[in-house]
């Protein structure tokens, strides 16, 4: 991990690191997400590339000090491009015994543990299930350990500020942040500015947090405890303006952008559900963009309201997670049958049932593709990185509008809450995705009178006309009963049902000609490829890079669309002897590839609520290469 060591004028050395993976862990009430977020922000402003992994329990405040109340935040900061929050952390900040117990196993052997020693008293040790004191019983023998009495030092520094001891104690996370900011040479201004901005109106809180942060920083500098400080130099990133973004925010902004590019108003109807609610929160604060948001009484009402909005000529969108997608199935079928635009966004989490609400998984692929009764195909788009959620949202809206179809956009808990630096796009480069409403009759009857046939399709796209209420002369009825081709009148004719079923399927299949080819990253001849979809892109990208550094050639293919599949995919896959398909499920895409192309891909699965690490993927690649 150490590249160069230079002697500092004092006795300490400054070591350059290519990368740092740090994990902040504490009680749910300890503010670890905030601490991690601030460290991330300072690193981003410093110019590092980075990726984060918030990892918190579903309970808002689990009993303090217990193992299930532990909340953690991992971030990888690097002087080179990174696409994952890192494998094993090299540094663990543990605010209490439970955090140490639950997180220590993740730490790289020989890694650094920074511990709030004040929290290691008998009651907390009991709660964490320690029978002996891990600080003295040899538990930490293989790590570099720093014991810092964070709670008492924070209380001490807040004493003269008029802050109550209990409130002062709550600032100890800023003390911890101060220590690691010093240790890893992070700029302090962004954090101090942020405290002022966030708590400025509550003077004492701002003062306590500022004092705790400065004290932590000063402690690092003066305590003679640390032999070295570390520097992760800025990464060489593409020039431009950057911001730090997580997937749910990128998705929300992408929806706003999509509405602008479509020149139509956006209507978001959602029911609160983890980890999708933040999209509702973000967009409900963007009413000045003309965004209407609606918190519905349930998941079904949410998707129905979105369909109603689309009928009225707005872009109807609903956001949810797995349980909600299951509930929305019937309505998605309605939208498919009445052929109106609809965007359903599923931020996947661990399932089935309530499953692991705050943990990530990518196991809703089958539900998205097949989770409706009848022959009900629809386009499925999947985002692959936090910032790319912005573009995935625009693409999903484009398909919904152009083909008058419900579209499911898959994201996941890791993308939703994980953040990374984002090179802001030039808005001029965004595609025009506007469509025309039908305003005139589109056919004539037997007597030559103009008539409107709501199911007379555009021969190129097979999309039906979109005539919205308020348009004179085009009054028509749509519904879930089978419709006669062209007229849209109810029809129970066997031949017509066969025709309509095929038309609906062909419409979606035809989209393959309107989406980009498979994303391919190839660096030389090889007969091994990794095929990914969704957020596993990051771990695969990182693993492939590692393999190439070791002179092992492997191609990376990635699917941005799961339905229809990219037109070139079958041919591409046929070129390899071995295709690995890593998925955060039990092999859903692998089954599809096998049945679709008769190619026996090798499925690599992980269903543990946490993303693949690059090492896991790299090991699988190495195995496949050696087998060949």
């Amino acid at each position: 991990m150490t590249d160069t060591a230079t002697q500092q004028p004092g006795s300490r050395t400054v070591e350059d690191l290519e990368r740092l993976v740090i994990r902040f862990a504490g009680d749910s009430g300890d503010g670890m997400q905030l601490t991690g977020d601030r460290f991330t922000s300072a690193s981003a402003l410093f110019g590092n590339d980075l990726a984060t992994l918030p990892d918190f329990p579903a309970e808002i405040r689990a009993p303090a000090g217990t193992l299930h109340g532990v909340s953690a935040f991992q971030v990888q900061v690097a002087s080179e491009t990174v696409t994952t929050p890192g494998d094993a952390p090299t540094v663990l900040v543990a605010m209490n015994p439970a955090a140490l117990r639950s997180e220590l196993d993740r730490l790289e052997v020989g890694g650094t543990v920074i511990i709030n020693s004040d929290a290691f008293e008998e009651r907390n040790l009991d709660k964490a299930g320690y029978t002996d004191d891990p600080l003295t019983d040899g538990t930490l023998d293989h790590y570099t350990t720093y014991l810092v009495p964070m709670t008492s030092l924070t209380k001490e520094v807040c004493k003269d500020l008029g802050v109550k001891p209990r409130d002062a104690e709550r600032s100890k996370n800023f003390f911890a942040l101060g220590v690691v900011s010093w240790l890893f040479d992070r700029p302090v201004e962004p954090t101090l500015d942020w405290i002022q901005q966030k708590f400025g109106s509550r003077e004492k809180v701002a003062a306590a947090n500022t004092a705790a942060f400065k004290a932590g920083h000063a402690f690092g500098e003066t305590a003679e405890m640390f032999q070295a400080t570390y520097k992760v130099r800025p990464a060489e990133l593409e020039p431009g303006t950057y911001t730090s973004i997580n997937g749910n925010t990128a998705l929300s902004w992408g929806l706003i952008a999509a509405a602008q590019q479509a020149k139509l108003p956006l209507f978001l109807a959602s029911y609160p559900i983890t980890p999708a609610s933040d999209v509702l929160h973000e967009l409900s604060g963007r009413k000045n963009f003309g965004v209407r948001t609606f918190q519905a009484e349930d998941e079904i009402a949410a998707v129905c309201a979105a369909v109603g909005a689309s009928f009225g000529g707005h872009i109807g969108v609903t956001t949810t997670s797995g349980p909600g997608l299951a509930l929305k199935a019937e309505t998605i079928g309605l939208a498919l049958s009445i052929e109106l635009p609809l965007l359903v966004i599923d931020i996947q989490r661990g399932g089935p049932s309530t499953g692991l609400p705050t943990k990530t998984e990518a196991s809703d692929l089958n539900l998205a593709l097949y989770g409706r009764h009848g022959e009900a195909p629809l386009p499925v788009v999947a985002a692959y990185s936090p910032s790319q959620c912005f573009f995935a949202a625009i693409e999903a809206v484009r398909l919904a509008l152009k083909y008058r179809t419900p579209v499911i956009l898959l994201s996941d808990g890791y993308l939703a809450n994980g953040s990374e630096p984002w090179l802001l796009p030039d808005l001029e480069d965004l595609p025009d995705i506007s469509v025309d409403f039908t305003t005139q009759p589109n056919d004539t009857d037997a007597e030559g009178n103009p008539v409107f046939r709501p199911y007379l399709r555009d021969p190129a796209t097979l999309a039906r006309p979109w005539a919205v209420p308020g348009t004179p002369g085009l009054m028509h009825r749509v519904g879930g009963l089978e419709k006669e081709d062209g007229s849209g009148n109810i029809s129970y004719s066997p031949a017509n049902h066969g025709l309509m079923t095929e038309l609906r399927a062909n419409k979606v299949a035809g989209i393959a000609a309107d989406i980009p080819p498979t994303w391919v990253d190839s660096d030389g001849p090889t007969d091994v490829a990794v095929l990914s979809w969704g957020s596993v892109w990051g771990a695969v990208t990182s693993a492939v890079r590692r393999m190439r550094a070791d002179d092992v050639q492997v191609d990376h293919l990635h699917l941005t669309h799961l339905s229809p599949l990219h037109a070139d995919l079958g041919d591409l896959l046929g070129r390899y002897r071995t295709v690995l398909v890593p998925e955060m499920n039990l092999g859903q895409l692998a089954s599809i590839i096998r049945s679709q192309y008769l190619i026996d891909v090798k499925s690599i699965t992980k269903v543990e609520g946490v993303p693949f690490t690059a090492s896991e993927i790299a090991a699988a690649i190495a195995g496949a290469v050696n087998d060949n």
Partner: protein
Amino acid sequence: MTTDTSTGPSTTKADWTSDQEPRWCPGCGDYSILSAMQLLMPQLGAQPENTVFVSGIGCAARFPYYMKTYGMHGIHGRAPALATGLATCRPDLDVWVVGGDGDILSIGGNHLLHSLRRNINIKILLFNNQIYGLTKGQYSPTSEIGKVTKSTPLGSVDEPLNPLSVALGAEATFVARTHDMDRNHMQEMFRRAWEHTGAAFVEVYQNCNVFNDGAFAEITKKDKRPSMLITLEHGEPIRFGAEGERGVIMNRSGELQLVDVADVGEENLLIHDERAETPSLAFALSRLSSGPFMPTPIGVFRAVEGPEYASQVTRQLAFAQDRSGPGDLHALLRSRATWEVA
């Protein structure tokens, strides 16, 4: 795209009649409701292109197909939710919801409650026939206890819902009841619902002549009406009977009671007040009869003004634009900390 409905060209029944032949059973009460609506629309000065009928599933839910307006035949129970999205985005439209007792009170009960309490500008017509018709004769949430049907061979043990009590409990700002045997009264209730700003709930007693024939005959047959229907008139004493000889009073326990006017004196009759601030009186009136075999009030139970949903949503959009200026995507992307890489 939008036109003021009150000033559009005049229309006739034909302008409101689609080319689709109704497929209800011969003799179904739905025919008279459809006809009443098609005849009323020209009188209202409404415009077909600005009118939308939304429905769920069931016999009643076929209604939109027969109106020459925009329409959506949705899925079971969800019509109020579909209509909520439409009415919220398009306040310029007249949005009607049509459904039966199974659709709106059973599978879709939740959406009824929430569309009413939000005061969405939709007009909900509940065709209550106290039976499941399209699925061929199971008991519904408004069927009486003891009802023998295909799914209750020994009689239903389920307590029925009182639709008007439910609507009033859900903070509905407009609640009325009518029946399919009286076109004029239906039209008057539909008109009042149409004129109301916000959610309007109209229960229509509707005869299913195949699976529950005569369910309302005790009160809606011509010769029974004077003694069994209590027609509510705002500001008037509540009385009924061929000569107005019967009436309603509130007794000392605060309960409504049917009386002979001669016994209590006209001056002691309850005066109907559909605009009462609290729904207590309307609620008591909704409980006056426990089924269509006792004297039953019809008419407007409650009609009060309340903040309508879409207009508030629109107001918030305008407020947000006033406060923050129109949305600027370029600025939004830079609204958090940014940095430059050269």
